[in-house]
């Protein structure tokens, strides 16, 4: 493909965990038609319920934090909408704490917030979640290391090469320039692709702020579309 590529390297010593986990042998290149263009995994067994897209309504009460709408389009490499694909998200609560038992950060859990959601993109490739803005949290990568606020995203798409797991960041976060994970992407244009935009048009008055983040997947939808 001739498209610019802003993918991070596997080995990035500033992110210490890559040191023993990045493969050191050269990756084997296969012809795209053999591998990359194979149909993507049949994710249909992953259960998606209508209420899974509203992370503020999964418990008896409302979670603490700044309520936000998170929406955007999922497009293929030709800029066509990717319809009916699975989008999974997970995040820390407003205090910067994950429900996950592996998280030992001494910030409060919120009994009204789990922080995991799923949805399928609609006929225009649009996904939409309601959640609360996650907090920053410390990690032990280097002295006084803090992750900028982020939401984890997992997407499937039409082909094997479309599979994407990434993180979405919030505009204006002062921790962004200090984060080795985001800065593993050498080119600022690539890093910008992971920062959502504040979207006043989608903001719901007296209810929730909104952020827009479009996602481009590798590969192309093989099924001809009418539009």
């Amino acid at each position, binding site marked *: 493909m001739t*498209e*610019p*590529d*802003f*993918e*991070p390297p*596997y080995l*990035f010593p500033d*992110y210490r*965990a*890559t040191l*023993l*986990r*990045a*493969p*050191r*042998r050269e*990756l*084997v*290149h*296969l012809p795209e038609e*053999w*591998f*990359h263009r194979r149909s993507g*995994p*049949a*994710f*249909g*067994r*992953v*259960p998606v319920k209508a209420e899974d897209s509203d992370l503020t309504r999964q418990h008896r009460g409302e979670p603490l934090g700044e309520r936000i709408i998170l929406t955007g389009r999922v*497009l293929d*490499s*030709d*800029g066509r909408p990717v319809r009916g694909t699975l989008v999974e*998200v*997970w995040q*820390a609560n407003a205090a910067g704490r*994950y429900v*996950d*038992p*592996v*998280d030992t950060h001494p910030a409060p859990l919120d009994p009204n917030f789990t922080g*995991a959601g799923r949805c399928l993109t609609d006929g225009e490739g649009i996904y939409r979640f309601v959640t609360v803005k996650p907090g920053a949290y410390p990690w032990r990568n280097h002295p006084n290391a803090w992750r900028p606020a982020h939401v*984890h995203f997992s997407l499937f798409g039409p082909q*094997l*090469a479309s*599979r*994407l*797991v*990434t*993180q979405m960041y919030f505009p204006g976060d002062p921790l962004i320039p200090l984060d080795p*994970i*985001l800065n*593993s992407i050498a080119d600022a244009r*690539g890093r910008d*692709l*992971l920062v959502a935009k504040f979207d006043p048009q989608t903001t719901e008055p007296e209810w929730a702020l909104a952020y827009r983040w479009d996602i*481009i997947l*590798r590969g192309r939808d093989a099924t001809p579309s009418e539009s």
Partner: protein
Amino acid sequence: MTVPTPSQTVGPFFGFAMPFEGDAHAVAPGSDGAIRIEGHVLDGAGEPVPDAVLEISEGDQFARCATDREGAFHFTVRKAPHFDVLVFARGLLRHLATRLYLPDADLDGDPFLQMVETERRRTLIASASEGGLRFDIHLQGDQETVFFQL
């Protein structure tokens, strides 16, 4: 406009979000043609990777399994010559792709394997074990698994 959105690590905290009921079973255990595949994910020091999540797929089959504290994973699949395997983990800024071959597949006639150096092909071939197949994934080191460029 059509530059692909770059990847970022799955991180360590996916365990409350990515797993789903029955996720490791592409087909029901004990069903016709079902086989169990188990293995470990290991880092460059040979230590288990307890915060990885794997996906296996072939045709209409799909399964997902997060590794446990010992870096172990398992799948139940319906027998096929080979499966595509994706590996996500803390410390992997981008996921890895490999392929699992059944030991009784037509290994000599497979075009994928012809692209791989002879002495590294064995990293792609599961071995028979009690009750199924064994397939370990070495992210790094002398026995590093063959991974394909995405």
